[in-house]
């Protein structure tokens, strides 16, 4: 009896052991499903479609290309320039950037160091490994597409180096090495000149292999084109030639913060780079200024002005984030308050500055007879929007007072929005294309004009750029056909005009913030209190305008011309040199 039971026990024991041993048999994958894409699958030497590799490239695009609408904790970068302030209560991060409330250890909100070095690594991974993939795809001209994709990644990498360069000065160039946990990454910074040369060389080397605008098919809409590489080169050379780096180095003998000597030929290089893009004939100004921002480019749309952009899709986010707050059914958070300083920069519709005699400017009716770009850039009191006038007088629907977020300057942002001045049906927003344009033709023209003026003075070419832009804006050509521009200006007079034109034309496109730095005029531009309008409406409807200060920015010259390298990068890496005064 006992023996039988003992045997039963033995059998059970054997059974359990056997089942346990059999459970040791591999019944599952050895590599988890989410982690099965290894290097030879991601860059598959057998995949002639290169599916995974091209997905990898998409992610490089995703991190590398900026999307500037309300990018910085809800605000435009321009809200840290003299063009606008944030309407947010308290001390929003963007205001800390404008008032210098940041340091190396507590970086400002536009701290791109980490995210760009992440994307630079990704771009390099693609550049190094894409040659393993036997891509069969051909460009419309019969050339293999692989060099084009590889050049796209090189463009994106060069673009990121440029974005770092304009913020920090010379930065470490990592080359084509992909570093692992065991590698030493305590690298020193490359000089400013090295970085410029590297970016320019990359642009030169990739231009031929990239698609031309006409080779872009609808499924490749948004890819880097030859035009983009040329536009980047033109912009890099313009920055390199600009006073901050060329002759005005804040630390004159420090090759990291700029060139150590002035060379006028740098302006020539910049002008030539812009000129060669203009002579392609691929791009042209859109007939209507406001359409340039809400129309898609060829081959999908009809926009001829966009050179490189990031798709934002068709939605109402820009309108809702920045629109006036009184349209409750349409929604509007009014986060951006353009300044009076910006509004005053717009000339009159005859092309004259509002301070000029005979400009027809009327301080009691300040928005009448103005450059039409004004009403395509900002909304002001009485501006028609969604079938009713915007009310930014004190107590008006769009500036009611109290605790709600609202404009601080009596202006709201208008640029980039759809044409909702008057809409049929209920007064709400409908979907509009909101691609963020990094490079557009108008900027290339202005780059050309500025570089040409600096190298050879205000030639007719320079005037022609201004005529074209003002013509498109809708400024009257005038009897003399000079769009209100004084003839025979000196180089420095022209410089002032060009700087103002750039401010007006490219407002809220992340240009002004860096322009005032590279022109080395930030300490002046930021030393003027930023103002807004205080508007009182009497019971009889009469309106009184008062200019009031809204924010006094702080600019520590020369420290703030460059961002500080993040403190941890400097403290963890003995080879990393901090920027002056930080």
């Amino acid at each position, binding site marked *: 009896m006992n023996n039988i039971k003992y045997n039963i026990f033995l059998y059970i*024991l054997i059974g359990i052991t056997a089942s346990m041993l059999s459970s040791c048999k591999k019944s599952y994958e050895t590599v988890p499903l989410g*982690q099965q894409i290894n290097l030879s699958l991601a860059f598959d030497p057998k995949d002639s479609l290169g599916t*995974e590799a091209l997905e990898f490239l998409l992610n490089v*695009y995703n991190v590398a*290309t900026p999307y500037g609408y309300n990018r910085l904790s809800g605000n435009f970068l321009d809200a840290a320039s003299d063009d606008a302030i944030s309407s947010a*209560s308290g001390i929003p991060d963007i205001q800390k950037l404008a008032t210098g409330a940041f340091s190396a250890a507590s970086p400002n909100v536009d701290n791109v160091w980490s995210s760009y070095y992440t994307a630079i690594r990704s771009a390099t991974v693609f550049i190094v490994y894409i040659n393993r993939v036997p891509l069969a795809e051909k460009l419309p001209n019969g050339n293999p597409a692989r060099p084009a994709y590889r050049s796209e990644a090189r463009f994106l990498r060069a673009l990121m180096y440029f974005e770092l360069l304009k913020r920090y000065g010379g930065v470490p160039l*990592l080359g084509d090495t992909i570093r692992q946990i065991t590698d030493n990454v305590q690298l020193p910074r490359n000089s400013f000149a090295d970085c410029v040369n590297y970016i320019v060389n990359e642009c030169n080397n990739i231009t031929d292999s990239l698609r031309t605008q006409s080779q872009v098919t609808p499924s490749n809409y948004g890819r880097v084109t030859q035009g983009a590489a040329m536009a980047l080169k033109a912009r890099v050379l313009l920055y390199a030639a600009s006073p901050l780096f060329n002759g005005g180095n804040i630390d004159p003998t420090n090759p990291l913060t700029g060139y150590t000597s002035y060379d006028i030929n740098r302006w020539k290089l910049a002008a030539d780079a812009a000129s060669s893009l203009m002579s392609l004939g691929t791009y042209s100004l859109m007939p209507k200024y406001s359409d340039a921002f809400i129309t898609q480019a060829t081959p999908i749309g009809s926009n001829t002005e966009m050179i490189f952009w990031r798709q934002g899709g068709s939605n109402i986010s820009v309108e809702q984030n920045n629109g006036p*707050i009184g349209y*409750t059914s349409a929604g509007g*958070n009014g986060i951006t308050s353009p300044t009076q300083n910006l509004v005053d920069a717009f000339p009159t519709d005859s092309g004259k500055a509002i301070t000029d005699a005979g400009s027809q400017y009327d301080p009691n009716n300040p928005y009448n007879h103005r450059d039409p770009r004004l009403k395509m850039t900002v909304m002001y009191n009485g501006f028609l929007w969604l079938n009713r006038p915007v009310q930014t007088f004190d107590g008006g629907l769009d500036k009611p007072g109290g605790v709600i977020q609202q404009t601080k300057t009596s202006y709201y942002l208008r640029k980039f929005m759809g044409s909702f001045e008057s809409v049929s049906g209920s007064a709400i927003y409908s979907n509009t294309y909101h691609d963020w344009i990094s490079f557009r033709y108008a900027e290339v023209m202005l780059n050309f004009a500025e570089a040409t003026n600096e190298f050879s003075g205000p030639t007719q070419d320079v005037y022609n750029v201004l005529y074209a832009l003002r013509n498109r804006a809708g400024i009257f050509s005038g009897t003399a056909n000079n769009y209100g521009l004084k003839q025979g200006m000196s180089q420095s007079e022209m410089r002032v005009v060009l700087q103002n034109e750039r401010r007006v034309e490219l407002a809220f496109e992340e240009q002004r913030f860096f322009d005032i730095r590279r022109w080395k005029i930030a300490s002046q531009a930021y030393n003027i209190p930023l103002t807004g309008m205080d508007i009182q409406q009497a019971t009889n409807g009469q309106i009184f305008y008062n200019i009031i200060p809204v924010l006094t920015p702080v600019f520590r010259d020369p420290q703030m011309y460059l961002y500080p390298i993040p403190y941890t990068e400097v403290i963890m890496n003995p080879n990393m040199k901090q920027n002056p005064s930080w």
Partner: protein
Amino acid sequence: MTKTIFKKCVSLLTIVVLLFSQVCTASYYSQTKTFLTDTSTFLLRGIVFDDFGHPLQGVVIEKKGAATFTVTDEKGNFQISANLNCSLVFKHSKFNDIELSVKNNSAISIKMTERYLNKINYAVSKTTLTSDTEYLSTSNFKKVKILYGENNAENLVSPISAVYSNELSTTPASSYMYGLVGRLPGLNVNQLSGFRTPLTSPLTSLDIFVGNIPNNNSGAGPTDNTEFAIQLRGHGNSAGQSPIAIVDGVQREYYSLDPESIESVTLLKDGLSPLLLGQNSSRGALLITTKHPQAGPPRLSITAETGMQSSLGLPDPLAAYQYAYLLNEALLNDGKSPAYTSADFNAYRTGSDPIGHPNVNWYNTILKNNPLMSRLNLDVTGGGAVARYVVSLNYMNQQGMFQSSSSNSYNTNLDLKRYTINSKVDIDVNKQFTISMQLFGRLQDGNQPGAGTGTILNTLLSTPNNAYPVINPDGSYGGNANYTNNLLSMVESSGYIQDHVRDVMANLDLKYKLDKFIPGLWADAKGDVSVQSANTLNRSKQTPVFDMTLSSTGDTTYKRFGSTVNQINTYNTTSWARYWFAQLSLGYDKSFKKNNVGVAMVFDQKKSLINYDLPSLLTNWSLKGNYNYAQKYLIEAAANYSGYNRYQPGHQFGLFYAGGLGWNIAKENFIKNNISWINQLKLRGSYGRTGNANIDSYGYYNWMNYFTTVVPTYAMGSSYPGQAGLVEQNGTLSNVNATWEKADKIDIGLDISLFNNHLQANLDYYNERYFDVMQQRGATIQLIGMNYPYENIGIDRYKGTELTVTYQNSIRNFNYFITGNASFQASKVLYMDEQYRQYAWNKQTGHPVGQRYGLIADGLFQSITEIASSASIVGYTPHVGDIKYKDLNHDGVIDQFDVAPIGKQKPVIYYGLTLGFNFKGFDFSALIQGVQNRDQYVNNSYIDAGFQSQNNSYSQAYQQLLGRWTPETAAYATYPRLTAGGNAYNSNPLYYSNSFFMKNGNYFRLKNINIAYNIPDKLIRKYKVAGIKIFVNAQNLFTHAAYGAGDPEVSMPNYPIQRVINTGFNIKM
């Protein structure tokens, strides 16, 4: 369902009340009245019963004043020579002492009641009736649970502390963790939330490009402990460090068990006792043993109880007029124009315009008082020589604190219903072979308002009293453009979210004694399968709000905000898991005269399959042995070769080992023969090299190089929003060298038991060096373009002392006890690959683990001149009333160089004190629990700063802010000047902490109090019940905190800690 249970409760209650009305006197024994005139001795017979009315063996009966005693036999019978009016004392380690005086010679019957506090008895020498000297109480030596078994307390060389069923079952709570607070020295149980937080997010999300994608990429499994942070000996600051829960010998994360169904919870805390856990042995273990079968006729125990909960530590919101006034002050401080006029103040104060100027105390509006918590418990156990069984059934219903509306046909309130069944059967197939089976099942059904408990509590915390009216005159919910979701509608009209958790666990344990081959040899095979699935049913909706305005002509308009979102009906799996556990042991226990030897070989493997993961496999090959000479000199050792398959192949197995020595001085003749009041004096020590494979907390197969898909990414072509993209392993470098954390643990202890075991004390000193602790390296340079992973870098030391002192005794029938424990815990970072720090005070190495660093506040600025002469943060101009920070390096700027440790750095002291008595059927016990040298960082942006930027407006503010700095109150202000919109200078300067908000965190609570009355036997005998007990107990009745505002442990927006006042009864049959 609840209604029927309620009816049953009511009928039971009626019986109890009837019985109670008959109470006149309490009596412990019955006797027939035969008068004796003789004073000579006679033989008194009697029988002793336990609290179920079953005969009780092993009760020691002493005649007071005489040196003799007797012990009851297995039928509970005893006989003792007695004389008239002599006193007899009945003693048993599990039961309260009873003393009675003999009135006549008729047979007596005694019923004993259970002790509240378990008692460990060590041998006491006595003389029996036949004048033999015998070591008494050996029969009721307390066996204590050790990992995968039990042992005599006398033989242990490791510190063991345990909590038994009485202490747990008097805790009115949903989980046994509540009952551990303050009771186990070395275990810090910090409450985080007053209610469980169920999983509601789906396991995977559907993507149109790549199908189902897992939402969680870590291999760490689900846990049902969402209310407590558990630390062993202060260790638990990095992930995956808390003690492992081992339920009935199987590692399972069950914390949400009914305290009533648990027999004991034992804490294994040194290096030796949990060594068989191998790669988890550093974490220590909580051994949870549910009630096990007892032989004999059926014992049925029914407990029903209901408690009223109330929330503690809710903040006091400012009334609307105070809010408006203070917001104006804040705006003026910021240089902005005020938002409210004096007409507004008046309207808020007088309530004359409840729609335009509402003043709503949202706490009173959406929370209800005294939600109920009910529990029903049934245990039955019994059996004979061949088979024994126990079945426990539990039902629990805990209600949440939200209001609900009778207009809903469904429940919207937060609640938890739990049904548990636990059954165990032991079968003796023959004298050698025992089969034990266990089946455990648990259903947990949770509910919460459709808006979600977390969202509601956050909104409640942040919505000002004047945000909008609750209800408009037309009955619609109030709201406006900025508040498009009404708080009341969030709790009562947002639908509901249900969650369901199902657990099944089956255990099979085969034990065989192989004595016929080799005497003392045994084999044991254990298998366990358990399954858990959790899912959620989301039937939430949103109700629109209306903003009522009066036009100048007096017309009322209602403007609608927030869309009507139809009730959705989404069903999702939130988690599922399967666990397999198998264990084979072969052991040998034998005594050779005074030499006692025990050896065992153990192999076990735990396989877990969690969600969509691959199975994780933890394998242990262990060898353990113990030897003692006459229980005087003790040696114990264990070695474990343990592997975990989440490490890189070739790096999966490691060796862990431990050993201990003990010297039982009380057994030495020089004490045994001379000092009779020393029952136990044991010096012991243990050392262990333990490990912790916590790699799951840092990712999933993170040694591999791989690419992952991210969606959606960049929009290329005409398709928006974009296609899938590929990234390098989620942005973190692969960690090819990852290995388990390790620790060297030393524990030295002293166990003392004196005066017939009335006074007992345990003292432990421990010193633990943890190394290879997962940390990020100091040079995590961003240039490499990837995050650095957590690597085996850190070295930390933890040391401390634990002391427990217990005194139990009785004065006639007054049984009383007092037990206190205290733990002193200190830690130190020995190495952390710290980045370069310019100044000594910036350094973190050498400070306690988890030390908080920040700026040192030096009062508030009182004058412009003071500001002018002080350092400040770049870009910020301080105002009077702002916090002044210490410029430690005197460079005129407050920056990263002025960061230093803030708060105390003394050893933290956790203590608990339990005392109580039993007298004439009354039981009383109370637990006081507290912490000393604790820091509390009090910096809730809504409560301690207020007026945060939100909803295009400003958030709520609380009474605390009345202590803000103003020129008038400059001398005694408790807060800096007010600002609006989140000026971080005072609250979060440069994203650092700030010692202004570091408060004294010391506190103590009257954690638990219990009063019970056992209805006298003679009143209930005719109802055929063995015992009826009625009780009242309370949890968190009183708290004293050094920093008075709010609760010291749980603060909003976490679900507040609850005070529970609970009443019920227990019937034993």
